[in-house]
């Protein structure tokens, strides 16, 4: 019996020792990250059967268990990966959030001061200092565009670098996890499948860390290893092997660093689809780049392009201090290499089988439609694109009454009833519907009854998105030339308009959302891409980088209008003509080759016109009513005749020679500040910019608020894990005392058993 009692005592002693060991391990690791508290699992030994029943055989420690819940840990993973994403997003977006609306660093103050420079010229058109102010404030505006864009660019570069270092971090984590998988297999094999708790904790902790970098899906395997997948099932850890990710320039955009994997053959790599890479810091960086940074940069570029093109168009209609027609005020460098404006990014995918290149441009022009010889001939009035030299005298196409013609994305159509030869219309695709087609007042009655329709295109149609163009070679409703155009901001497939193009050309042209794309014609006329080839188009990405002021000579600011009106002093009636304005630049008629004389013929109640070539013989009856204001539009000049003329009264439209104090064009330039010229004529430049600010601000706020909420969730999840797995030192202190006392009792037990044995020996001796 005494032997049994000693055995029982020893088993208790050993168990208490194990308890103290585990408790001390807990105490030491109280603040080890990822540590799960351990405890011993103690049971009674198999009892000894006797005739008198079962006698206990003492205790035994079966194994050391960790307090761990896979469910709770899973919650932590999910919450932490979100927190990681939102924190990374917030860290990035707060930088532009602060910069955009800064009272001094944003675009708004520069835009404001530029237009106040324009108004300054309007107030003092002949003053060189005022003109210099306008040039200087324009240069400041351009510099501001560039500096904001530079900030965006640097942030883009920063994101690229961070993605590269993220990839390194992820690779290091996956390597460690693979190594731990190996150790865990070995440990389990050598310990008859006892769980190596500390190794498991370490691995769980590493997975949690990895989750903060990128959302992963851990899948426990039967052999005790954990396989890890990212994205849509891309394995990074399988069994005891890890697969490295790579950071590389994207196939469809060399400026963008993306995450890729080596192909199995090891010869190349493929880009992982970004929409599947979510969660964690890497997910945050990618989301920030796609949702906030690039759209903001595109939108800024859109403002720059719209400002430049609208301003140029108006400036070209004016006359400078030297008496010459205005030249472009802003300019964008042209790249001879790509045959496009330098700001336009059009990348052929590196995987393309074909070598075809496409070219794109953003056109903002007015058109003149003149009916002659049974067809409407369409002329492009202004052409700032070096792709096609300015030519107002060469028709770019024609269509019959009842038909239509697509030019630069604008569809011009007419009813079946034909007007009279010589009737003309000005089409301004940038205008709202009501003022998009302006019929010449000099048109015949049939012409006045003719309605022309035009769809809207140009700057106001620009969306600020990027596009992907895939060549399928199959002509469908949405791919009229065999090219599928996808808007990347919402992955919508667009339906481009096919433009009229000369039969001799090797390219076709199509327009979508203000962008005109030249694509090779099918063989043999052109060399189309291979089927499946794809291209990425970023029409506005770099425009804010490239915008520049075209000249520095203040005399070249075109503040005056190219004409002036005059009433003949010898008139006997009380007729008046207003100062007039330019509505479109018709290069065939402006600058005026000489004075235009309007003479009133009372008998026909009309004004006969004598002037240089290109002016009609008269304003036909019906378009003029004496005694009330009549707005007349001729050759892009709009003026109002009012009052009651007498027969033979004359009005003149003269060249504006030496009109240095004329500010009509400067006023028109100033009016652009509040004109709604963007987003389908709904937004001014300031509106468009404040949309960027608001979008970024909203996103930043969303990220911040969601981040806080997510942090709370993560805290709760962590707390739940801590409640289960965390070490409580008080508890350990109690355990320490418990096991100490158990140890002391077991020792006493052995001592008692020994004493019993001694007593027995003494009795028998």
């Amino acid at each position, binding site marked *: 019996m005494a032997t049994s009692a000693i055995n029982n005592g020893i088993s208790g002693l050993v168990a208490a020792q194990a308890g103290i060991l585990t408790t001390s391990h807990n105490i030491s690791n109280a603040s080890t990250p990822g540590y799960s508290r351990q405890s011993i699992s103690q049971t009674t030994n198999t009892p000894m059967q006797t005739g008198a029943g079962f006698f206990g055989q003492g205790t035994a420690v079966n194994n050391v268990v960790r307090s761990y819940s896979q469910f709770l840990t899973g919650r932590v993973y999910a919450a932490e990966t979100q927190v990681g994403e939102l924190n990374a997003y917030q860290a990035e977006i707060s930088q532009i959030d602060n910069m955009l609306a800064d009272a001094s660093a944003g675009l708004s103050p520069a835009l404001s001061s530029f237009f106040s420079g324009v108004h300054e010229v309007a107030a003092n058109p002949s003053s060189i200092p005022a003109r210099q102010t306008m040039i200087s404030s324009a240069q400041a505006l351009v510099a501001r565009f560039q500096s904001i864009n530079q900030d965006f660019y640097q942030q883009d570069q920063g994101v690229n670098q961070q993605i590269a270092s993220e990839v390194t971090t992820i690779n290091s984590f996956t390597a460690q996890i693979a190594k731990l998988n190996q150790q865990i297999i070995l440990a389990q094999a050598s310990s008859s499948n006892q769980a190596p708790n500390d190794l498991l904790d370490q691995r769980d902790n590493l997975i949690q860390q990895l989750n903060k970098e990128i959302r992963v899906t851990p899948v426990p395997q039967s052999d005790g290893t954990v396989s890890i997948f990212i994205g849509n099932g891309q394995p990074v850890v399988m069994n005891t092997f890890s697969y490295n990710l790579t950071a590389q320039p994207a196939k469809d955009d060399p400026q963008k660093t993306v995450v890729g994997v080596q192909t199995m053959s090891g010869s190349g790599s493929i880009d992982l689809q970004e929409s599947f890479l979510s969660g964690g810091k890497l997910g945050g960086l990618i989301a920030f780049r796609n949702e906030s940074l690039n759209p903001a940069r595109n939108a800024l570029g859109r403002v720059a392009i719209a400002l430049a093109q609208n301003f140029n168009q108006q400036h070209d209609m004016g006359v400078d201090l030297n008496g010459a027609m205005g030249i472009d005020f802003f300019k964008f460098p042209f790249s001879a290499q790509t045959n496009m404006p330098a700001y336009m990014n059009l990348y052929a995918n590196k995987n393309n089988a074909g070598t075809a290149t496409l070219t794109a441009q953003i056109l903002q022009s007015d058109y003149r439609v003149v009916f002659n010889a049974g067809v409407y001939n369409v002329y492009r009035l202004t052409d700032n694109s070096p792709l096609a030299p300015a030519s107002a005298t060469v028709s770019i196409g024609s269509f019959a009454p009842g038909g239509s013609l697509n030019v630069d994305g604008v569809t011009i159509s007419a009813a079946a009833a034909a007007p009279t030869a010589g009737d003309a219309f000005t089409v301004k695709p940038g205008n709202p519907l009501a003022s998009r087609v302006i019929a010449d007042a000099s048109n015949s009655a049939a012409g006045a009854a003719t309605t022309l329709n035009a769809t809207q295109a140009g700057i106001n149609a620009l969306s600020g998105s990027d596009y992907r163009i895939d060549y399928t070679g199959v002509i469908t409703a949405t791919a009229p030339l065999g090219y599928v155009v996808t808007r990347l901001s919402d992955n919508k497939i667009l339906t481009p308009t096919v433009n009229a193009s000369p039969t001799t050309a090797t390219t076709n042209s199509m327009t979508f959302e203000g962008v005109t794309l030249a694509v090779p014609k099918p063989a043999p006329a052109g060399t189309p891409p291979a089927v499946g080839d794809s291209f990425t188009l970023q029409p506005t990405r770099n425009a804010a980088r490239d915008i520049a002021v075209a000249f520095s000579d203040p005399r070249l600011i075109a503040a005056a209008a190219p004409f002036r009106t005059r009433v003949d002093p010898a008139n006997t009636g009380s007729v008046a003509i207003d100062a007039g304005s330019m509505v479109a630049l018709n290069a065939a008629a402006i600058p005026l080759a000489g004075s235009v004389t309007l003479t009133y013929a009372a008998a026909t109640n009309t004004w006969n016109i004598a002037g240089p070539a290109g002016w009609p013989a008269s304003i036909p009856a019906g378009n003029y009513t004496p005694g009330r204001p009549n707005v007349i539009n001729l050759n892009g000049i709009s003026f109002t005749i009012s009052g009651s003329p007498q027969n033979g009264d004359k009005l003149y439209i003269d060249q*504006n020679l030496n009109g240095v104090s004329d500010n009509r064009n400067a006023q028109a330039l100033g009016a652009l500040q509040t004109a709604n010229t963007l987003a389908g004529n709904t937004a001014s430049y300031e509106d468009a910019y404040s949309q960027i600010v608001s979008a970024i601000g909203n996103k930043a706020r969303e990220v911040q608020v969601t981040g806080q909420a997510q942090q709370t969730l993560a805290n709760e999840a962590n707390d739940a894990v801590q409640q289960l797995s965390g070490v409580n030192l008080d508890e350990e202190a109690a355990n320490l005392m418990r096991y100490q006392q158990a140890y002391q009792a077991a020792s006493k037990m052995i001592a008692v058993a020994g004493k019993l044995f001694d007593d027995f020996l003494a009795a028998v001796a």
Partner: protein
Amino acid sequence: MRISTSMTYDLGVRSINDQTAKLLHNQQMLASGRRIVTPSDDPVAAARALVVTQAKDINAQFATNQKNATGALSLEESQLSSTNDILTRIRELAVQGGDAALSAADLRSTATELRARFDELLGVANATDGNGNYIFSGYMGSTKPFGGNVDAMLATGSEVSYQGDDGQRRLQVSPTRYLEVSDSGNDVFKLIRNGNGYFATGYNGNNTGTGIIDAGNVTNPATWNGLTDKNLEIRFYQDATVTPPVTYYDLVDTTANVSLLTGAAPAVPAFPGVPAGLRVYKPNQTIDFSGLVSVPPNNVTNYGISVLVDGAPANGDKFTIAPSQNQSLFKTLSNLIGALESKLANPTPTGSAALANQIGFALTNIDQATNNVLRVRAAIGSRMNEVDTLSSSNQDVNLRYQQTLSDLQDVDYAKSISDLQQTQNGLDAAQKSFMKVTQLSLFNYL
């Protein structure tokens, strides 16, 4: 519930962090005075603040333009005020020159002063603004508008030359109003109707009598305006065969060359004898263009005008009536100087009559010019008034924008300071409780 030791620490640090972040944000708001430190604080308000700021800037631009407009208008107004003064003086001199008792020396000095006034007037018309731009040259600010001198104008009978244009400079003083801040020299000094505005009476240089014609009246403007031929003549014939001699006059449409009294081609009547149809002249009597013979092309019996001739016209004397034309202020003045100087060369009763007629014309035309200048001044005055009104409404608008901006952006100090105090207390509590809780440990008693 089980609490792990590290939770105690984590929770404590977490709440201290939260409170510190709140405190910092509060402090930023108070220090900057802005409710929106970054757009993310209130994206809608931040975007709206940008738009309102632009509207405020544009409004400020209008305020500047209004000041510019007021400056330009007052400058023009002061020039026109000088013009008025000069015109008044010229009128005095003209009246003085008409004094028959004036000696040759006085007449000469009057003419001399008028020449000086002509140059002064030319100076005003060619005045420049602070930037060296000519005020009255329309768009052609760097072109001197008026050229010419009395001698050249008298020698050739030409008009003053105007090199400017008819452009009116405008400034945008409100979102919709482009205010005219200049008037062309043409409009102010040149495009002035001569005579009474409908027709101008004229004096034939070959007249030998002492007849003096006035500026005439329009009794029926509609009739007069509807006429095709408006160049008329009053021709005087004297029957010297009777005693005292009787003076007759004929009214002639010179374009159609037909007598309006006889309906036939005008002919010199044969005396003695009473010429059929012609009317008998009495001095200082209204000559009415009514009760006429209807002849083509006018085909009316009443021309709707009347003139008054005084004095004693000689046989063959003629007075003309022509539709009003534009005559510059300078032309009127040079005509007056010419008349005074002719009188010096021809000190006879005929010369006096010529001078009296010319002074009459000059006075009429000076009045027309004065009216024209007053018209322009009235327009300037109403524009300046408009600027004043716009300027006060501009200030109201500015105040409103400022209010809106303040509502959008500015911090509510009372609330922020109380928030700051509250957060401070919270932080204090978090720190103190952290210290208390972390000091508790069973190991203290082991």
